[in-house]
């Protein structure tokens, strides 16, 4: 029987107040404790929004994350942070990591960036860059080859994941993998990444998802069907849903809510598209999600889109 549920797939936008607080913190006008208090308030609020929307897994908002790579880049030895680079085709930028030598962990990589204690037990969703996205978006001055770095990254993050799971319990781990679909990679690279993903997620008991966004999901099919993950997620602002239906994907996350546009999708229009997909291919597990992070939107619109997930899930449950 088809199980239908929903969740978000990335960071929430900071409120204007929180942005100002970060600015004051950078100028040393407020302390880290004062900033943390404001972040915590925002985390609590966004957790409440997702809980009220009945989402299966809940993110803490990722308000500490300046970009997807930063927490990892700042907490690995052998990595420095460089200047700004464009984040795919967005009007946003990330600070490019430079890998200067073989990477190792200094301490816990994520402890200053996560708020799992605010989230109801079993529902915490942790999002991390997949090995290929992190390594390919960095500048490699280490002299090490791609496969060496991929597996080293995977090893280090796996240690972190296993520890976090023991300490807090994780509902779902999502590997964000935009670099895998941004352009069409060769088969060998896709298989190599699959092995690295397996290494990164080994012994992790949480539901494991890999989310492909900012690019065409067909670029990685059928190879990713063999990845050792539970759920494959796709950005349907870049992927033709009916072409996706040509593949047997048992557990699929449909990124059908545009995370980069403010228009609140018409539920009826979304239903028609999903129905068309389900008439061709019925998975065991279907998630309704945004196409990518919601941080490209304003806080108000991000909240509306979160509630929209619930409306679409409820409407689908009535039909299926």
């Amino acid at each position, binding site marked *: 029987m088809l199980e239908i549920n929903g969740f978000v797939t990335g960071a929430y936008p900071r409120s204007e107040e929180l942005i100002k607080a970060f600015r004051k913190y950078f100028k040393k006008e407020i302390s880290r404790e004062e900033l943390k208090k404001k972040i915590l308030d925002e985390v609590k609020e966004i957790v409440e929004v997702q809980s009220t929307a009945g989402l299966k897994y809940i993110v803490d908002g990722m308000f500490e994350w300046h970009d997807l790579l930063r927490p990892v880049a700042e907490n690995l030895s052998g990595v420095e942070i460089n200047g700004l680079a464009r984040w795919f085709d967005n009007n*946003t930028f990330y600070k490019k990591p430079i890998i200067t030598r073989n990477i190792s962990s200094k301490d816990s990589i994520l402890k200053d960036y996560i708020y799992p204690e605010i989230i109801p037990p079993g529902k915490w969703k942790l999002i991390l860059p997949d090995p290929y996205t992190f390594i390919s978006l960095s500048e490699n001055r280490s002299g090490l080859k791609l496969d060496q770095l991929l597996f080293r990254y995977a090893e280090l993050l796996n240690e972190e994941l296993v520890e976090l799971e023991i300490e807090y319990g994780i509902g779902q781990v999502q590997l964000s993998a935009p670099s895998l679909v941004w352009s069409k990679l060769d088969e060998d690279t896709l298989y190599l990444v699959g092995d690295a993903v397996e290494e990164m997620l080994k012994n992790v008991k949480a539901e494991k998802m890999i989310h492909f966004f900012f690019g065409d999901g067909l670029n990685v099919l059928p190879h990713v069907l063999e990845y050792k993950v539970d759920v494959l997620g796709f950005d349907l602002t870049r992927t033709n849903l009916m072409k996706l239906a040509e593949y047997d994907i048992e557990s699929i996350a449909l990124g059908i809510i545009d995370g980069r546009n403010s*228009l609140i999708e018409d539920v009826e229009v979304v239903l028609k598209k999903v129905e068309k997909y389900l008439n061709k291919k019925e998975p065991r597990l279907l998630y309704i999600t945004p196409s990518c992070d919601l941080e490209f939107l304003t806080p108000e619109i991000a909240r509306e889109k979160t509630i929209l997930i619930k409306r679409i899930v409820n409407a689908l449950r009535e039909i299926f």
Partner: protein
Amino acid sequence: MKLFPTQEVGSLSRAPFLKKITLKTIEETKAWGEKLGVEDLDKLLSILEKEKLTEEDTKILYDYASLFGIRFFESAGLDVVWDGEQKRIEMYEHPLRYVKGFKFHGVVKVWDAEFYRKGAFIDRPELIKPYHLEEFLFVKSKARREVKIPLTGAYTLAEWSFDEYYIKKYSDLDDPVEARLRAKEDMTIDIAEKIIRPNIISLVEAGAKRIQIDEPAVTSKPWEVPIMIDALNRSVKGINAKITLHICYSDYTKLFPHIAEAKIHQVSIECANRDTRELGVNDEKRPGYAILDYFREYTPWIEVATGVIDVHTDFIEPPELVRDRLLYAAKKHGDPSKIIACNDCGLRTRSWEVAYRKEENLVRGAELARKIMS
């Protein structure tokens, strides 16, 4: 016409008296006013000494800021000037305040704690009134050198906005990429024809002879470059003015071959940011200007305003470095008469002290290059 004429590109940081008025800013204003030879300085200083400013006083302050901006570039010696965009808020928000069919939603992140106020097109846009005309008339009345007015292009306004109108028409398409491309095209063309073009017409009718269209967003989606070119051509069709297209911090190779279809006279690009600071007129020392091969091959008729001043650093380019950058650009392009000396982009992030020294050396460097070529 002289070789390597000099021009600015856009913004300058705010005039000192547009920030908080203190004794220090009054002194700074006096010093800059005297250095730049700004007329009626006493009137400005007497306004700054008032306890409370009226609305009329504030308007006068902005006029003076514009005047300071013009004299800034003129006294540094530039051939083509603007006022450093002193009266503008920001290149996206400013024009959209004058557009019906558009609604601001709130702030969105650019990076870390940098953000901009973003909105959505909720209907087909209509221009409320030309938003640079008054500004242009003031600058024209005060400038002693040739004037070039910048305005944000249609593609950038579309790309940096949400779409709550155009995408609906294509919601039934199975191919989401095709749907978004068509919606983007419709939106950009409407902005070009209904917003940008009327602005340009009003400026030309008021006497504008040089117009710069800024399109920083264009190479973030290389497959949409043809949309930008089409929109630009619709914006300037039949316009009797020299048109410059300014694009900064981009992969310029993505512009080709489409840019050959653009109805422009000049393109203004950033090169100094990617270059070395060493002297020399060879490939090794001048990697920032490699792109000129493409302009030589595809668009030899278009002037190239090559950035020889890096606007993101306080390093003051020596005139000899400017000289070598220009000489190399001329060699790479093949036609020295097509090379214009300018900054990579606007100087908004630099202090006036730094910006002024950079502009002086831009002018000196161009003169050195000219002497060698003649």
